[in-house]
């Protein structure tokens, strides 16, 4: 049975009830997000995860999307003047945007499910990949004469600084996960095991969050194993090839 993220029961200072209801109240602006302890929601989710033997990646994905949307809204509320373009977005618009994005993601997931079903229907359909065994030889492709200034234009375009990214879509300007993916990989090439807290010491909160997302991505790609003996206990990371047998298990203290 997958975890129903939206039915996750929460017991926070500002709110008691299911996650779904919290989202609703936030969307209707009946609950000021600045009073909601988002870390508390994360703890509740992690504890729920810990009750299970295996990792529910599906639920983790959905949870990350929801919680990051909330984080984004909250960050926006806390630092309204940080960016003029951000400040221009009314709370109502921001809530609308959140709802729009939730719907968009859900549709993408449903479309993916449809594709998967389709793949199942095509399971017993085989066709040739590549050229026929006795096909006539393909002649060399011919290219019409080209103007050399097109090359100069192409290179000039590559040398122009990109315009500042548009904030219309409310993307938080996180450092790219790829940066941290590479850092973790480099680190794990030198050492088989590292401690998360030690490695992220001195980084900003946002950077720590992205570093953690990068870890999840590496875990998903089976490059590493992650273990944590109890909530808030140190997170240990090891190279998957160094410790194939170690699966990610989270146990409550």
């Amino acid at each position, binding site marked *: 049975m997958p975890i129903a993220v939206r039915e996750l029961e929460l017991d926070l200072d500002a709110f008691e009830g*299911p996650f*779904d*209801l919290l*989202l*609703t*109240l936030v*969307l*209707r602006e009946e609950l000021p997000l600045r009073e909601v302890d988002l870390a508390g929601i994360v703890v509740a989710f992690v504890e729920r995860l810990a009750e299970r033997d295996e990792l529910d*990646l*599906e639920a983790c*994905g959905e949870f*990350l*999307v929801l919680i*990051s*949307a909330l984080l984004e809204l909250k960050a926006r509320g806390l630092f309204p003047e940080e960016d003029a373009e951000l400040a221009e977005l009314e709370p109502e618009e921001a809530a*609308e945007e959140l*709802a729009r*994005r*939730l*719907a*968009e*993601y*859900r*549709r*993408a*997931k*449903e*479309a*993916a499910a*449809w*594709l998967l079903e*389709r*793949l199942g229907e*095509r*399971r017993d*359909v*085989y*066709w*040739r*990949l*590549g*050229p*026929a065994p*006795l*096909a*006539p030889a393909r002649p060399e492709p011919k290219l019409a004469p080209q103007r050399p200034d097109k090359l100069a234009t192409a290179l000039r*375009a590559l040398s*122009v600084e*990109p*315009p500042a*990214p548009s904030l219309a879509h409310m*993307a938080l300007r996180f450092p*790219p996960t*790829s940066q941290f*993916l590479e850092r973790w990989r480099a680190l794990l090439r030198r050492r088989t095991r590292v401690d998360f807290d030690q490695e992220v010491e001195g980084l900003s909160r946002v950077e720590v969050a992205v570093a953690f*997302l*990068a870890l999840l*991505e590496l875990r*998903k*790609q089976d490059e590493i194993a992650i273990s944590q003996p109890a909530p808030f206990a140190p997170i240990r990371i090891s190279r998957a090839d160094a410790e194939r047998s170690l699966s990610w298990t989270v146990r409550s203290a």
Partner: protein
Amino acid sequence: MDRPLRLVAANPVDQLARTIEALLVVASQPLSIDDLVAATEDDSERVETAVGLLSDRYREGRSGIVLEQVAGGWAFRASREAAEACARLYERPVEKGLSNAALETLAIIAYLGPCSRPDIARIRGVNVDGVVSGLVERGLIAEAGRENEFGAVRYRTTALFERVFGLESLAALPRLDDLGADVTEIRARLEAVAEKRPA
């Protein structure tokens, strides 16, 4: 007197159908009616008649070779009946082990049309670099220019994508509205939950 009779007996579309069979058996990709018209130098009405004839002759249950309409054209495939024998001989490198992340990314590109990695990342909420290069490697998506002159590279789905998923064209994807709720619906749903809860 003999001659016109012989012409009727030979059924000229039959000869055209034989040529089309030959084209289909060597082609690496589905051939559209336009492709067939160009290669046979015949007219499109006759080509369509011949294709109709062939799709009856090469149909599931009647022949081991099946003619199907897919990815904007016509192509031969093996009959479903022969799937087990095919599985013993052939791998399925394109669709083998497509992850959920890969399917979501494909869905987004197929539905939204050309889009960039940041576009996809925004919807999926995670970095998609690895997934996108994996899909390019499999040939399911390909580059489709940049967002603007200086922007990120955009990707589109390929004919191979349509073939793997058995789509006649991208228009064969179900409408998204039928699949998921839109903004107002999702809000309404959330609010309904709120009202049901005892205060």
